[in-house]
């Protein structure tokens, strides 16, 4: 008797926009450019600092393609097998043939079992691959992408198999994101891979876009949101921080004060406290920076006073 356990089908993502997703003209423009490259079968790479909406934009563009999405997030521990799959276990088969009762014939056979991973599924079925923060993976783990993106061929390491070469499905598309300013746990992408990608640099959105996005994500009225966004943007422009205050900081402040029904007013100590909690953490806390932190607090209070009077 042979009991064969069916290989688990791949888990795919069905990506859709949230109700509060804002497609401002700036977002629309970048998405259209990216789609044009993807439709011409070129992989797209969104590069930008934290909080510029790289991942959201990648998912938004992937949703426009209308194919199932496979999402991979780069990691230091990734090896090639984590992308394409590996040999896992055996198919074991034993046959006892007693067709003639006096003659017993045994046959035993064990075959190594190959299990596809997400990249292989994506190449085989024509999914859209979103490889988020791909520079967090070691460059050698990403080598397998070179032939996929150029020759349209996935080369598997199981040399003896008839499936050693897989022709990449014509619907396969790939979107990458990375943060060039990140310094923790990232690697340089190899030139060969970077050369294959169409890189679109993203920067922080303009004031109007940030206000619309923050208002949509927090539920705060636009005129109140504008005050919060202005405080965060001016703090960003000051350069007095170690971690750049991003749109996430604006959304954090706006969402909390919207939930607590606080006015964005400098006279309300609870609002000021929330702003300081969110924005003061953008400076590294060491004993030597006490004076700098005091100056930073003074500057933040003056910004709040200026915009939220």
């Amino acid at each position, binding site marked *: 008797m042979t009991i064969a356990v*069916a290989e688990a089908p*791949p888990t795919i993502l069905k*990506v859709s926009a949230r109700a509060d997703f804002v497609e401002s003209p700036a977002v629309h423009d970048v998405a259209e450019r990216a789609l044009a490259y993807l439709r011409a079968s070129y992989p797209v790479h969104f590069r930008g600092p934290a909080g510029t909406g790289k*991942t959201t934009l990648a998912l938004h563009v992937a949703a426009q393609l209308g194919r*199932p999405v496979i999402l991979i997030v780069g990691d230091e521990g990734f090896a090639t097998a984590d992308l394409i799959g590996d040999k896992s276990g055996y198919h074991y088969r034993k046959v006892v043939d007693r067709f003639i009762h006096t003659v017993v014939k045994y046959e035993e056979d064990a075959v190594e079992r190959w299990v596809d991973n997400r990249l292989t599924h994506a190449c085989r079925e024509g999914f859209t691959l979103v490889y988020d923060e791909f520079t967090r993976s070691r460059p050698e783990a990403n080598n397998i992408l070179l032939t996929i993106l150029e020759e349209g061929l996935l080369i598997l390491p199981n040399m003896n198999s*008839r499936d050693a070469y*897989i*022709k990449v499905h014509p619907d396969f598309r790939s979107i990458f994101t990375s943060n060039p300013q990140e310094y923790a746990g990232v690697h340089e992408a190899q030139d060969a891979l970077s050369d294959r990608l169409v890189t679109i640099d993203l920067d922080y959105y303009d004031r109007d876009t940030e206000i619309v996005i923050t208002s949509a994500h927090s539920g705060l009225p636009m005129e109140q949101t504008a005050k919060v966004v202005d405080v965060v943007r001016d703090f960003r422009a000051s350069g007095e921080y170690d971690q750049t205050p991003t749109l996430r900081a604006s959304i954090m402040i706006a969402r909390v004060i919207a939930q607590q029904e606080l006015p964005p007013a400098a006279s309300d100590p609870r609002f000021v406290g929330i702003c300081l909690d969110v924005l003061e953490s953008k400076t590294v806390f060491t004993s030597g920076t006490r004076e700098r932190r005091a100056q930073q607090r003074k500057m933040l209070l003056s910004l709040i006073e200026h915009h939220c009077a």
Partner: protein
Amino acid sequence: MKIKTMRDVSTIQGLRNQATPTTREQAVTEAARLERELARLKRELDMWTANQNKTTERMQRIEQRLALLGELVEPSLGSVTERSSGHERVAERTEDGRQEKEKGWRTVDLQY
């Protein structure tokens, strides 16, 4: 009939049996013999049919048992299936084939 071996050579008894009876006694004797032979063959057919039914029932019981074992081994499988040891890899599939395959995918909704 073409004669290939000695088995194909008719014996005198065989020729006699195949010949058209000339007397009433011969006809009655042969008719009686053939009636007995027909009855014997009917009994044999009944035995074969009974054996076939019994074997079919056993096969059904085994298939039910295998389905149960398959559920225990892999609940999502539903039934035990015979597969080749190699993975079937198809680089290009038809639209119908793709839809069939899509039904088996596990889908997770992701909102951005």
